[in-house]
């Protein structure tokens, strides 16, 4: 496979790669946000129980 050709995406490189890039960003954001949602609550639950 020709890498140059592949990257060009038949002349649609800007559209195809920006769509895939954006998808990767949104999936990564979700991953980060969901993790943060869980770990923040775990931390504050731990903090509360150590204060008690």
């Amino acid at each position, binding site marked *: 496979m020709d890498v140059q050709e592949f990257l060009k995406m*038949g*002349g649609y490189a800007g559209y195809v790669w*920006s769509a895939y890039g*954006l*998808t990767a960003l949104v999936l990564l954001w979700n991953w980060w946000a969901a993790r943060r*949602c*869980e770990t923040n609550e775990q931390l504050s639950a*731990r903090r509360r129980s150590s204060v*008690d």
Partner: protein
Amino acid sequence: MWLWIHKFGSPPHAYRLLGKLAPWFGWSALALIVGATYWGLVEAPRDYQQGDAFRILYVHAPSAWMSMFTYVVMAVAAGIGMIWRIKLAHAAAAACAPIGASFTFLALATGSIWGKPMWGTWWVWDARLTSELILLFLYLGYMALRSSFDDPQRADRASAVLALVGVINVPIIHYSVEWWTTLHQPASVTKLDKPSIAMEMLYPLFLMMLGFQLYFGWAISRRLRGEILRRERNARWLQESR
């Protein structure tokens, strides 16, 4: 059955179960999404009309599907929470909203990126695009409504009404391409007769959809665990577990 619902509806049980399930969802989602991306970008043949731009389909259609799927899950969870007063169901509905909003945003954005080379415009106010935009506003409205209450129980009830009323938009999105003349193409996969897309183009799409579905499973597990901890902050099981 009732026993099972009761068991699952109990926060400590759900918390532990979701913690066990999440890694399975996560790793299988990662494997499927990576595999489908490779298949869709490299192996799938070029479309004879749309050229390589059609490959945007592999991220656009799954995110559009997930935007509607997540809303239905959210509305069903909100309905269960309203009728049977199960707090865990309200928590699940609340956990759905940000995930669904992000998928809706992604569907709109990738659709727009596809629209530019194919239709010659980033955006038109046709029925499909407009109803999908309304879906985004429903998610955002749901989250704004929730955050406007200090009391979680009042937030649950008010937002559940919004989620249930808004679900009417989901069939409108799906059938918009049949009911109205739209620039958006009609369904080519979710039809009762044979799909009008070549099988070798379809397999990576199915793979990606499954991957997104599992990814949703992972994200909802993590978020729901967070929600449970927040709501159960004074519960005894939480204090006994350490």
